């Protein structure tokens, strides 16, 4: 490894690599640049030296159990944390990728605006990590995915070249949307240095309704059919064990809990509550305002609260779809953001799930997105032409293969 790397950056920018170990193996070096310039220099040097770089935000979502194929340098971008431009009147924000979601939310809250991104551990989760991981929470349908909110970005390519994609305005079709390509790429092909986002207005009224759900009820598809058309902010179903993490337990009867989130103008929220009560009866608990927001963050955090975990995506929007699967395994341990089409499943033991497991889920329309602490192969491998296309994109943007990603 070239000695040039540390000399390019201030000694302060080199940090203890032990904290960036993956699969029990620490990289040879860990760098924490203080600016986009420094980050680009680090990448340039790494590419020149054929060193493998894994980018880090706060590491809230990185699967630490997997040993990466190649891992020489941890590049911690959480030091790039400034808010660069906030235009409340335009509903746009540009921030460096190391800014935390909590910091951004705080800035926006002062103007009654909402950051339409969700990720567990928002106090630490970074903007860049959230975008790179295509992270989402219960309100995924309401907000969209990160790619629906990103207007443009400044990106560092593997060789340190810095490029711009998109822009800072809410309508833009000029050029190729490399900033969208990188959402979900988890640090492959290019790294976010800064991103511009389309913001959302804050809701006048925020309410969460908590229901206990029995096994028979959850399986009753007719019971839930009205919910998606009502367009609540979110509907989350939890197994009883996950539900115990919630701040409310009064009256919570296993096996399941459902939280329905309503975020809108007050008159419509009241009307939605009325309609929901007509169908489901009164909730056992009701939260509003700050308490509701805290609960939403807990529901978001719930994704990472247990390991091993397998996360799935699905087009289904009726909680009943889960009923046959719940009876087979881990009935107490799942979080299902129904309208977001996202299921987090916590199998009881580590090790490889039987192949029938993923096929079983696939038969019910749940596709593996991620597995942590357990190897869960997707039921269907990616199409050959897609793999070839991805390989060509990799050759085009990172021919040396500098940017590696943690395993999944």
């Amino acid at each position, binding site marked *: 490894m070239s000695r040039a790397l540390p000399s390019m950056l201030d000694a302060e920018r080199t940090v203890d690599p032990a904290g960036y170990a993956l699969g029990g193996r620490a990289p040879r070096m860990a760098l924490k640049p203080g600016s986009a310039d420094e980050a680009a220099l680090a990448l340039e040097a790494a590419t020149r030296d054929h060193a493998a770089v894994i980018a880090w935000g706060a590491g809230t979502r990185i699967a630490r159990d997997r040993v990466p194929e190649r891992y020489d340098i941890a590049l911690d971008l959480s030091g790039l944390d400034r808010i660069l431009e906030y235009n409340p009147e335009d509903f746009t924000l540009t921030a460096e990728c190391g800014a935390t979601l909590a910091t951004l939310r705080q800035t926006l809250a002062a103007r009654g605006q909402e950051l339409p991104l969700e990720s567990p551990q928002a106090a630490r989760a970074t903007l860049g990590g959230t975008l790179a991981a295509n992270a989402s929470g219960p309100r995924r349908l309401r907000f969209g995915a990160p790619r629906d909110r990103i207007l443009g970005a400044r990106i560092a390519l593997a060789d340190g070249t*810095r490029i711009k994609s998109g822009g800072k305005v809410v309508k833009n*079709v000029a*050029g190729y949307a*490399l900033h969208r390509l990188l959402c*979900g790429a988890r640090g492959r092909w290019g790294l976010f240095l800064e991103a511009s986002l389309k913001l959302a207005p804050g809701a006048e009224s925020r309410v969460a309704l908590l229901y206990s759900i029995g096994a028979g009820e959850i399986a009753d598809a007719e019971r839930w059919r009205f919910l*998606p058309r009502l367009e609540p902010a979110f509907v989350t179903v939890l197994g009883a064990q996950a539900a115990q993490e919630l701040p409310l337990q009064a009256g919570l009867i296993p096996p399941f809990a459902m939280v329905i989130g309503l975020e809108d103008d007050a008159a419509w929220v009241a009307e939605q509550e009325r309609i929901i009560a007509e169908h489901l009866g009164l909730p056992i608990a009701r939260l509003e305002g700050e308490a509701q927001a805290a609960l939403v963050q807990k529901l978001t955090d719930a994704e990472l609260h247990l390991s091993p975990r397998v996360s799935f995506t699905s087009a289904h929007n009726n909680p009943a779809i889960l009923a046959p699967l719940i009876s087979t395994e881990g009935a107490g341990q799942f979080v299902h953001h129904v309208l977001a089409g996202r299921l987090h499943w916590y199998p009881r033991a580590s090790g490889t799930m039987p192949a029938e497991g993923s096929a079983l889920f696939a038969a019910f329309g749940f596709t593996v997105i991620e597995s942590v602490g357990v190897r869960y192969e997707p039921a269907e491998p990616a199409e050959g032409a897609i793999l070839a296309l991805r390989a060509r994109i990799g050759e085009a943007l990172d021919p040396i293969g500098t940017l590696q990603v943690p395993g999944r």
Partner: protein
Amino acid sequence: MTSEHLDELRALLGSDGVLDSRAARFTYEADALVLEKHLPDVVVLPRSTDEVSAVVRWARARNLPVTPRGAGTGLAGGATPERGGIVLSVNRMDQLLRLDAERMFAWVQPGLVNLQLSRELSAHGLYYAPDPASQQVSTVGGNVATNAGGPHCLKYGVTMNHVLGLVAVLADGAVVTLGGEAPDAPDFDLASFVVGSEGTLAIATEICVRVLPRPAAVRTMLFDFATVEESCRAVSAVIAAGIIPAAMEIMDQHTVTLVESWLHIGLALDAGAVLLIEADGPAVSIDRQAERIAAIARAQGARSTRLAKDDQERAAIWKGRKSAFGAYGRSASGFYIMDGVVPRTRLAEALAAVYRLCAERGLEAGNVFHAGDGNLHPHVLFDADDPRQQAAALDVSHEILRMCIRMGGTISGEHGVGIEKRPMMRELFAPQDLAAMARARHAFDPEERLNPGKILPGEGESDPGPAQLGGMRVRPDVEGAWI
């Protein structure tokens, strides 16, 4: 194109799927950017993903470019076969394949007309939200190519926000599925990269779109102001109050005069600007939202408020807005429509600059725009027989886009870059930005076969823009415009 080639294509597509007469080819020589005309060698009309794949593979074996085309309403030359070859029209792939009303998505073919999709969904209380003004004619596939917007994208987002997945044919003929019915895909989001790529990365043959419940209630309001500046301030004030209406559109005096003299719908001829605001949502909240909007507009100087009392009046108000393009077409022998974006808060400033830049060149201009998202559409009028006026119009169009860039905006909000804006890409992006985009494009299409030459300026390309400006081709039979 030899007769052997034509026979081979007919064997793949059937004889009615291949058009090689001069008359047919002339029809496909341009889209709505009529000043760029290039004859294709042949036009094909496949009916399925397999046929599209077969054509692309055939074209590859014979080293011919393929230009995909929807309805050809594009204003940037995106569907123009600049290098000849094959125009691949998706007009025969025009079906709604499958609707899942409960899970609220639909698989459609790319040639399905945008408004037709919403019509077919309406029996289920659903609709497709992206509503470009061309929607009576433009296709979902074409909308995907340009990431089309429209007045209601202010609240509901653009095409990309409503595409869940695609089946697409790549440049080598491979058929791939990008995304799908589920909200997320594992790993990379190639579908959202293809949306807005103007047919240069892949040809979408099946599109999975998100559909939404129809809003329970709608209120359409028209306000008139003494000046454009006041109308822009009203827009900003509404947004600053945390209200995101479904649509906010402004027409300036020039436009209002043209539209009113044609359609007689009761627009105030002495208004500096007319602001159309539409609110939609649950019935229980709609009147309060409409009242708040009207109060803000009045506080910002609205001289009158007109609230549509029924569907007919709502349609009349929108007809006024959507007829702007047609109204311009009747008034001058030539007009050039532009598509730029500035931050919303700088709209009034941008408009003042547009008028000034045009006046400096002795040109008249009108403005119609999606005020809510800062997307302006200046119409520059000129005498099509006067080459100096043509040159001046072309020159001012570049100055207007430069202004948009300086203000932190962009050179295309919804029409696309195509041929028209290609030279301006060097002013918006740095060489390394364009190089990275070119490499990504190359990864999809190493032989540059699909819609070659569009979007990215070529090496050493220095042309200042379209060769000449002629009169814009207007279709008076179609109500609506594509701005």
